[in-house]
């Protein structure tokens, strides 16, 4: 196997030009966690490796009039420590706290997580529940994509070979919105979780946005389930009915350890726990959370 050419991108435009010149055989590396793993397993052999980690102005977290703007190179550790994230979208703080472990959170970036391990990553669920959008730049200019539309299939995202995710914009939830994150798996540290659920609920009632992972080939927003829960009284949700609708919206694949049926079972448990935690949280905070 010949070694890829290593290009240290000086700017987003330099990276895009390099990717374009590579004619589809370029690979972006940011924090390097996933790309290194691919190399160690001999699963990638691009002609050109484009290192974007030193591009100035891609690693930031800032408050905007609408919420938060997170640069693609912000690490999970940056997000975990950010007072702005905690103030505007504490759901993302909670998720970051439980991503993998400190030594990987120090290198792994939000942009990298979304683009490479979307189908197994935790942050994508929170971003879906919060209604985040991504700012993407390519040779033809910039475009905006809703994160739930970004995922096409396993390891397949709506990103051309010469496009780069520049930032993720997170709208601030309504004042008093309730939220929770639930992951189910062998252990919290390190293992890719089986089922991950994030929910953001309206300040009162049962209006809800749900982001799930592990229930299909790619992160999932079960809209019919959201619509059904919204018709119910938050205090007396009919989980049997919710489970039926949810089952129609997910397509988990059984593996050596967990059967498809078991994952369907877990998906409902994860959703129920997340919703119950979100509702309990509003009580804890006297409804002011």
């Amino acid at each position, binding site marked *: 196997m010949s070694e890829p050419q*290593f290009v240290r991108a000086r700017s987003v435009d330099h990276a895009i030009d390099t990717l374009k010149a590579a004619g589809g055989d370029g690979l972006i590396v940011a924090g390097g966690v996933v790309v290194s793993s691919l190399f160690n397993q001999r699963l990638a052999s691009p002609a050109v*490796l484009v290192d974007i980690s030193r591009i100035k102005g891609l690693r930031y977290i800032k408050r905007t009039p609408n919420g938060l703007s997170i640069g693609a190179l912000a690490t999970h550790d940056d997000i975990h420590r950010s007072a702005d994230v905690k103030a505007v979208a504490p759901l993302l703080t909670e998720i970051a706290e439980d991503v993998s472990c400190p030594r990987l959170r120090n290198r792994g970036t939000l942009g990298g997580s979304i683009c490479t391990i979307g189908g197994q990553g935790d942050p994508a669920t929170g971003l879906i529940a919060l209604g985040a959008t991504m700012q993407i730049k390519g040779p033809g200019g910039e475009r905006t994509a809703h994160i739930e539309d970004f995922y096409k299939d396993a390891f397949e995202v709506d990103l051309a070979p010469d496009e780069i995710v520049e930032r993720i914009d997170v709208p601030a939830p309504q004042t008093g919105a309730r939220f929770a994150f639930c992951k189910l798996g062998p252990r919290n540290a390190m293992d890719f979780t089986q089922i991950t659920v994030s929910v953001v609920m309206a300040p009162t009632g049962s209006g809800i946005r749900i982001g799930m992972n592990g229930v299909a080939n790619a992160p999932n927003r079960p809209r019919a389930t959201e619509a059904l829960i919204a018709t119910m009284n938050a205090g007396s949700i009919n989980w049997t009915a919710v489970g039926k609708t949810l089952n129609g919206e997910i397509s988990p694949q059984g593996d050596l350890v967990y059967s498809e049926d078991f994952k369907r079972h877990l998906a409902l448990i994860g959703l129920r726990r997340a919703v119950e935690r979100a509702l309990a949280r509003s009580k804890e905070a006297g409804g002011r959370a």
Partner: protein
Amino acid sequence: MANIDITLNVNGKDHRVAVRSTEMLLEVLRDRLGYVGTNKVCAQGICGACTVIVDGKSTTSCLALAAQFDGARIITVEGLEHDGKLDPLQEAFMKHGAVQCGYCTPGFLMSARAFLNDNPHPTRTEIIDALRGNICRCTGYKKIIDAVEDVAARSAR
């Protein structure tokens, strides 16, 4: 072809080295520069045996492309000792018997050192969470956590 020139500062000493684009920091540290205290186990980022401190942060050297680390300041387990004096963590690991086969030990020491530098007075729960990315297959976790807790308790407030 090893044609990417980088400079790594390892334990205070500068090394110029030409690396391949897919070469891991771990391989450069061990095989090129002789810092063999950093261990390789899983090459998947799961076990933490290869943990080193890069620019103050614990880093998984088996999942780190060396070419990305030009100019980095790296501390390996060999760099914990100063003037022949072991780091308090190393002393505590010996005192508490926090070493069985010893293969995971450098990774635990580096994760714990980075953590204590950031948070010198943690709770036991915080210590356990900080070490969640390091695996000891001898399962000697209790003594490892005791050792880190001991160092934290003895450091000046």
